[in-house]
């Protein structure tokens, strides 16, 4: 196991059902994620990318294979240890936002901190700061029903960051958002990446996928293609409208 990886998976598998009804949601996946890397996983619906993310985040247990996170083997962790991992080391952003309807934005964001037994005033301060960072400082006291989809997702992102996790996992974060809201989320991810946050994003939106350092294509539970997008010379944007010789690289 390479020490530089934050997350490492070998032959990771997740199966449901039995016999004829056996479904291999994740079918032998090998993955290495370095700290600070931004990885996108794309694929058609039902290809298993969400399941993979759940496995990485400790929301589900694998059926086989090995998974290391932050130096530890996840498969052997107890329920309690997994919960602690989810609490302190992983931040999850869901497509459906999953905010508590009866809590304000600030109360939603501070909840993981309270679960991590952070002092109430410290939790509240962290929540406030994070809401400022995502541009919702003036909406801290609003209920989710009073927020737009994009704003709700930004609250969810703030919530995912409140315990300063080493890994942020986002499952179709812009799936329910319009273009403008999608841009907001992309900007936040850009900032996070610039600050060194490790991100794994599952998406079917090529715009999101294109911003990643590495784009993995998934099909039928397995990785079928991997593209490294970072690096390479920066070309003039004019090539986009065919304004200079289209000699390519």
């Amino acid at each position, binding site marked *: 196991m390479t020490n530089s990886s934050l997350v490492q998976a070998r032959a990771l598998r997740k199966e449901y059902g039995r016999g004829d009804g056996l479904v291999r949601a994740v079918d032998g996946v090998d993955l290495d994620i370095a700290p600070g890397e931004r990885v996108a996983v794309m694929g058609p619906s039902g290809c298993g990318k969400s399941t993979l993310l759940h496995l990485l985040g400790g929301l589900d247990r694998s059926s086989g294979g090995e998974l290391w996170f932050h130096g530890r083997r996840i498969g052997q962790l107890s329920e309690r240890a997994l919960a602690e991992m989810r609490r302190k080391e992983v931040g999850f952003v869901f497509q459906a936002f999953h905010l508590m309807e009866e809590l304000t934005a600030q109360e939603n964001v501070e909840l993981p901190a309270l679960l991590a037994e952070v002092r109430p005033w410290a939790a509240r301060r962290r929540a406030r700061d994070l809401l400022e960072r995502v541009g919702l400082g003036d909406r801290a006291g609003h209920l989710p029903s009073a927020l737009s989809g994009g704003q709700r997702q930004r609250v969810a992102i703030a919530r995912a960051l409140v315990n300063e996790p080493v890994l942020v996992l986002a499952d179709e974060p812009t799936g329910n958002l319009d*273009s*403008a809201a999608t*841009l907001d989320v*992309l*900007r936040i991810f*850009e900032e996070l990446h610039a600050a060194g946050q490790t991100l794994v994003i599952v998406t079917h*939106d*090529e*715009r999101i*996928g*294109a*911003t990643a350092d590495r*784009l993995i*294509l998934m*099909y039928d539970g397995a990785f*079928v*293609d991997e*593209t490294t*997008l970072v690096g*390479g010379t*920066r*070309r003039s*944007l004019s*090539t*986009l*409208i*065919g304004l200079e010789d*289209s*000699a*390519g*690289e």
Partner: protein
Amino acid sequence: MQQEAVLALLAKEPAHAYQLRARLDDALGPLGEGLNAGHIYVTLGRLERAGLVVVEEPCAAPDRSDRKLYTLTPAGQERVSQWLSELSWPKPDLAEFHLKLIAAAGAGLTDPISIIGAQRRELLRRLRDAQHAVMGEPADSDASLLLEGIVLRLQADLRWLEACQRNWASRRSNHRRSDQ
């Protein structure tokens, strides 16, 4: 219709004009309806003048265009290779890319999958650049509107490329199976 497409269709083996026409029809299906019959001959003429193809006349036939057999010259072959590995995407010209893949597969020159992969990577990089440009622009500027259009088109093209990938990958696995 790029003349390179016609050129590439000769890469597999020499062909008569009408055979080329048939290959084009096969590849384009109903989309090839509007193809002007004469266009092929004009293109072939140009290619011949450019020295990329050469005509072999069968011995005992009179001088008739439709009996001419066209072959690639070495210069023509090189042009084909160059064209196959070109990654430019100046105007969305799906038909050209589509023919590129078919020609490559037919000629056995390059694996269509790798062509698709390379083109995908290029488009992704362009999308990434465009996306970055969008984020750098103020929301209502004219440029941001244009950039949004470019992003959306690139997104659409990428989706098609993914479909191409799946399609050609399954063709390949079918082939393998039937070969066994």
